[in-house]
């Protein structure tokens, strides 16, 4: 990406943006005790979530975890079985979607194919009875905001995926929604464009101070643009926290396995430490777990390292393969009990692989393994 000095055009754009930002008053969103079922299946199971004004929260989870249902409940397309949706200080449960002032960007953008770009952006303004002159001004302003000036008379089919998404965003923002909902907005874009659009959406969200909810199954996407992430599974929020907290301190085995990759090792609590089945004692000042309690220890690949010397807190492994992936080396190792682990270490320039053979696996000094008690039945 080439960086340019600001031109008068850029400065004017920034000026219009700050004007718009003043007009928008970001609102907080409060979901309390939302329950919804399809037939006998609980799609959303008692979800309570507070999104602060100007905050972007990602609903992250596998398909069928209820995240899209939750989004459609906020938009008003689905009426929840019980619970309350409050936008600002007003419960909107009895309001139809067209009175909720919620902007939504769909995965497939859902631009009106028979209308021009300008007509698409003006659609919500026309519905609100905004005058012709103001419509024109607002459409021009929104086109400038998403950097699509000069495309006003195109039809959606004449635009690329990224351009269509910018217009979908402009259309949603033109009516100055109180909440912006993003339903898998990057899923249909190719990888390079995806990053550009993530930056773009983050920029607009910051600049307008928008309260936004992003629904996604892509953890990188959620990590990169969300202020907080709500990891959902089976209709429930398993963990709510900042991207860093969710990665470093997963609250449940599900969150641990869904976010990032990790090595799971079986162990038993023994004198405040954990004896691993692979033959090492981790001096974790383990949580208040009873003696002899079986646990699973999750260690991120970058929190392990390979060393030559043996020690009580290290275990022997056989290195079979080292793959250089960008700036990292990914080692594939097998422990004595057959468990395979992945270890990521920084790759030194020119370095390709470590010597195959017997090594010892140790925790890095800053490693913070997660410990989950195993349910004994």
């Amino acid at each position, binding site marked *: 990406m080439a960086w340019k000095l600001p031109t008068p055009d850029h400065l004017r754009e920034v000026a219009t943006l700050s004007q718009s930002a003043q007009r928008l008053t970001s609102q907080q969103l409060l979901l309390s005790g939302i329950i919804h079922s399809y037939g006998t299946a609980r799609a959303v199971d008692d979800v309570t979530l507070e999104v602060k004004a100007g905050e972007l929260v990602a609903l992250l989870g596998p398909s069928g975890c209820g995240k899209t249902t939750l989004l459609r409940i906020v938009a008003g397309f689905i009426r929840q079985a019980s619970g309350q949706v409050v936008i600002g200080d007003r419960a909107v449960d009895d309001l139809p979607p067209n009175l909720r002032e919620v902007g939504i960007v*769909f995965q497939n953008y859902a631009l009106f194919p028979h209308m021009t770009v300008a007509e698409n952006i003006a659609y919500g303004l026309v519905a609100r009875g905004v005058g012709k002159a103001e419509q024109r001004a607002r459409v021009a302003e929104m086109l400038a905001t998403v950097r699509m000036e000069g495309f006003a008379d195109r039809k959606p089919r004449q635009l690329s995926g990224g351009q269509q998404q910018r217009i979908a965003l402009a259309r949603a923002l033109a009516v100055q929604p109180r909440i912006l909902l993003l339903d898998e907005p990057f899923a249909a874009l190719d990888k390079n464009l995806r990053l550009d659009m993530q930056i773009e959406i983050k920029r607009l969200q910051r600049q307008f101070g928008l309260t936004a909810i992003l629904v996604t199954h892509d953890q990188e996407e959620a990590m990169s643009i969300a202020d907080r992430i709500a990891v959902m599974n089976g209709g429930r929020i398993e963990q709510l926290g900042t991207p860093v907290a969710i990665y470093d301190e997963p609250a449940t085995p599900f969150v641990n396995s869904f976010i990032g990759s990790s090595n799971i090792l079986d162990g038993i609590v023994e004198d405040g430490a954990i004896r691993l089945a692979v033959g090492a004692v981790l001096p974790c000042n383990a949580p208040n777990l009873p003696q002899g309690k079986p646990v699973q220890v999750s260690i991120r690949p970058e929190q392990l390292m390979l060393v030559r010397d043996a020690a009580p807190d290290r275990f022997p492994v056989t290195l079979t393969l080292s793959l250089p992936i960008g700036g990292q080396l990914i080692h594939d190792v097998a422990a004595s009990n057959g468990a395979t682990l992945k270890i990521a270490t920084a790759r030194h320039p020119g370095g390709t692989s470590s010597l195959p053979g017997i090594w010892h696996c140790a925790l890095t000094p800053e490693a913070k393994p997660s410990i989950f008690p195993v349910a004994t039945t």
Partner: protein
Amino acid sequence: MRAAAVDWRLAAPLGIVYLALFAAPLLLLLGISLHVDQDLQQWGLDNWTKFWGDAFYRGVVWDTLRLGVAAVLATSLFAWPLAVFFCNASPRTQKILIFIILLPLLTSVVIRTFAWIVILAREGLVNQVVLSLGLSATPLRLLQTETGLILALMQIEMPLMLLPLISVMRGLDPNLLDASRALGAGMWRGFFRVILPLSLPGWIAGATLVFASACTAFISQSVIGGARLVYLPSLIWQQAMVVYDWPFAAVCSVTLLLTVLAGIMMLNWLGRYARTD
């Protein structure tokens, strides 16, 4: 190039059959209409001037086209809401609906038409309901009226309108209506600004079918319309089979063909303006 040379020879057998059994009879019909006498000895335009010079016959043409337009309007009025309902219904309901929609096509036109006699008669179903509810003191006259005929044609032609409409509307992105609602538009605005323009290609296909088949629905027109209402198809039958005036019947036939064709071309022309992508 070689492929193109082979192509026309492959199409030739059907082309010859088409020419012999379709184009030739039409030309023959046109030739018969250009004769003056019933023995087809003398050429002349007399029958054409007789047809178009007579206000009665011009009225028959007008009534026939009007019937087609009325049938299109009546079916559209019910087909569009039903199609919207269909597209929003669950797969199970859709299966039941499709069965109900196709039901009229499973019985012959003759039987359906006679069923409508039972419904529309002086002591028929409609009048029994109207009288028992006290909506009218005397039975309504529905048989042998245009209203009754349009009512019957609406039911008989409904599948022709519904099926193309549903097939186009099913292809529409369901998010479009949600997007419209989220932007602050009510259901009516969403329908008229989004659903209606985007489903126009399906409507034009349906309207073409309904218009053509309502204008030429000889059985329904003569059974429900009776002798009081004269449309081009029954005029042709009368001239050809009762009066034996073949040249005049040919004039009526060619006129029916051309006017219905003109209506269809107008719909197609409308379709060009309704391009949605």
